[in-house]
């Protein structure tokens, strides 16, 4: 009965929303996420900044000057480049001392050998894993050699700078037969966010549902409930209530993200609301569909798992089973991204446990035929309903078994009964 379902949903919702855990996670998770983003941003800046103060040591003053010019011509060039050409032993020991004191990041030693076109190059730095410095130096040295050659051919410094400037390559994509501008790094942002949010909420709220089912079993309150409400009412109500809790929390976070994303601070960092995630309108439209579908399917599965165990500790062991289809989806992601229309991708996107992530990936990569999208949504909805029905039956039987397993004929007899 609808009234019972709603009553139960309301109770489950209020109990959770009022709980301390809800308040704490609602506040702490964005702070944590913000902290991670901030750290990531700082780290990224450091990587981009890459080179600090450095020196070039060479027996060829011309090459040393050109390498310096090449470094300074770069987009994220070093703060300063000192040239020692040629360097004395005193210079070298002083440089070593400055590297040790972290006054300079490192120095590049270039030695031309008579009779050979290429010089030997060594990057000496304070770190054993300074691969960024090494890559940058490689570029700078080959660049420097080209510049030196161009110089001997009579080009001016400005001409050389203009010629060797890095060129930005933009990307575009043929989507639905039309060429549209695309951003290779951002077009899957929607899918990544979906995976993250789905995975997180299934872990938190799926386990929460399973626990609350187990709690009802151990506290025996189900016996009171079952004498007035049907197990379908109970399961559906629980699912709706816990689901509404999760959606409330997500809504708060989304509102927070939009507010922060649209703020002056974010804009100064180059973020312009949700659009900066590179989501198209279609992707935005399907996001809630697949999120809610996936959320309810996994929640119903969690409820079924909860019904079939008798102690809360066992729930933890089941949590792996719960998220394993999500893990498989994540593993398959790169393949689907590259082959969105292959048979394997199509089949997988139609299997309900994988539909939320895989079908959404396909929509992000290349819009699949509409019938496939609708079929996957229909299958997902049907399997949510089927899972609720099944878990209500398992609940009904599971709660009455005091530690002993139901035999198959018993199960079948229960399935017939509503």
């Amino acid at each position, binding site marked *: 009965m609808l009234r019972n379902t709603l009553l139960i949903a309301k109770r489950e919702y209020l*109990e959770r929303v009022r709980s301390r855990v809800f308040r704490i996670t609602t506040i702490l998770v964005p702070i944590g996420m913000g902290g991670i983003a901030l750290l990531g941003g700082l780290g990224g800046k450091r990587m981009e900044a890459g080179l600090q103060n450095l020196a070039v040591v060479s027996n060829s003053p011309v090459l040393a000057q050109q390498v310096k010019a090449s470094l300074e011509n770069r987009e994220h060039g070093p703060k300063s480049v000192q040239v020692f050409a040629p360097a004395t032993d005193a210079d070298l020991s002083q440089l070593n001392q400055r590297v040790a004191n972290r006054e300079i990041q490192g120095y590049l030693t270039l030695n031309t050998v008579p009779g050979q076109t290429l010089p030997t190059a060594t990057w000496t730095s304070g770190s054993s894993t300074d691969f960024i410095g090494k890559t940058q130096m490689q570029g700078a040295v080959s660049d420097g050699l080209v510049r030196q050659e161009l110089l001997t051919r009579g080009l001016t410094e400005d001409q050389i700078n203009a010629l060797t400037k890095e060129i930005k390559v933009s990307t575009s994509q043929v989507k639905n037969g039309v060429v549209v501008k695309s951003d290779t790094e951002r077009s899957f942002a929607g899918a990544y966010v979906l995976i993250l949010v789905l995975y997180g909420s299934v872990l938190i709220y799926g386990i929460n549902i399973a626990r609350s089912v187990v709690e009802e079993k151990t506290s025996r309150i189900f*016996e009171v409930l*079952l004498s007035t409400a049907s197990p379908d009412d109970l399961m559906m109500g629980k699912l709706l209530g816990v689901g509404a809790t999760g959606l409330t929390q997500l809504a708060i976070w989304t509102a927070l993200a939009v507010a922060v994303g649209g703020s002056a601070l974010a804009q100064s960092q180059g973020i312009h609301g949700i659009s900066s995630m590179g989501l198209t309108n279609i992707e935005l439209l399907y996001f809630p569909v697949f999120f809610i579908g996936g959320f309810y399917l996994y929640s119903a599965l969690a409820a079924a798992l909860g019904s079939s165990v008798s102690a809360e500790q066992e729930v933890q062991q089941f949590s792996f089973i719960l998220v394993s289809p999500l893990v498989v989806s994540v593993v398959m992601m790169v393949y689907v991204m590259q082959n969105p229309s292959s048979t394997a991708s199509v089949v997988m996107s139609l299997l309900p446990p994988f539909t939320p992530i895989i079908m959404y990936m396909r929509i992000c990569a290349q819009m699949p035929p509409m019938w496939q999208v609708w079929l996957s949504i229909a299958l997902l909805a049907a399997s949510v309903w089927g899972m609720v029905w099944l878990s209500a039956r398992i609940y009904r039987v599971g709660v009455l078994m005091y530690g002993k397993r139901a035999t198959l004929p018993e199960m079948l007899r229960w399935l017939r009964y509503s």
Partner: protein
Amino acid sequence: MEVLVELERVSKAYEQKAAVRELSLKIEAGTMFGLLGPNGAGKTSTIRMIVGITLPDAGKVSLFSKPWANTSLRRVGYLPEERGLYKKMKVLEQLVFLGELRGLGAAEAARRAKTWCERMQIGDSLDKKTEELSKGMQQKIQFISTLLHDPELIIMDEPFSGLDPVNTLLLQDTLVELKKQGNAVLFSTHRMDQVEKLCDAICLVNRGEAVLSGGMREIKSRYERNHVIIQYEGADGFLQHPAIAEYKSYAGLAEIRLKPHADAQDLLRTAVATSKITKFELVEPSLEEIFIETVGGRADA
């Protein structure tokens, strides 16, 4: 009298073990019905089939003179043996929720919950969380939740277990009052004295079978008054009277069991002739004795 509950040859087995075997009973409106028997006799299994938590393997369950249906449960108040409440909920919220689930409006449920809590002397706990209350108080809350929707049929599985004598009396009086208002009350217990005091009709269950059932008076009248208590002064030679099957003699007091169909009056005449008799009483057998006599050696010890 309207028959509220009728079981006809109901059987239920768990795995290979039979919990209830061909049990039949009838509960009429305005009566207090005791379902009694030793632990594991099948009382809870029987009750669960009445409220539809388990299904009978065979036999028929009727509620309110109709075949069992979910919808009938609105008129039933059920207190399970193993109590369960939402621990984190406040008492009033909990009662309102359970009342609403049984069809009451929120405001009406709250009003009734308050009245009942006053009546059960827990009026000052309405805003407390359930887990903060003592076990006895939680049991009272559950008791109230069973009655909030004013059910015509009240079914309670071991309602008095774990309660102190004061609260037991409070609950008993409440049930008696509800019975007087025309409701039917079914409760199970393994304590015969409670049943003897409260019930109009009983069903005695042993090993899943009804060994004795019917009206309390009628059952008792089926058994002979073959117990005699004699208080006397003087000689005790009358204890050798042929009507006596066995006796226990204390100082000036003898508890006697007569032989079947023995003449108690003849014993009295003999006694009066030899001793000074201050008390001569023919005692009707207690339910406990009837139970032991009926079940005999077959009882699960």
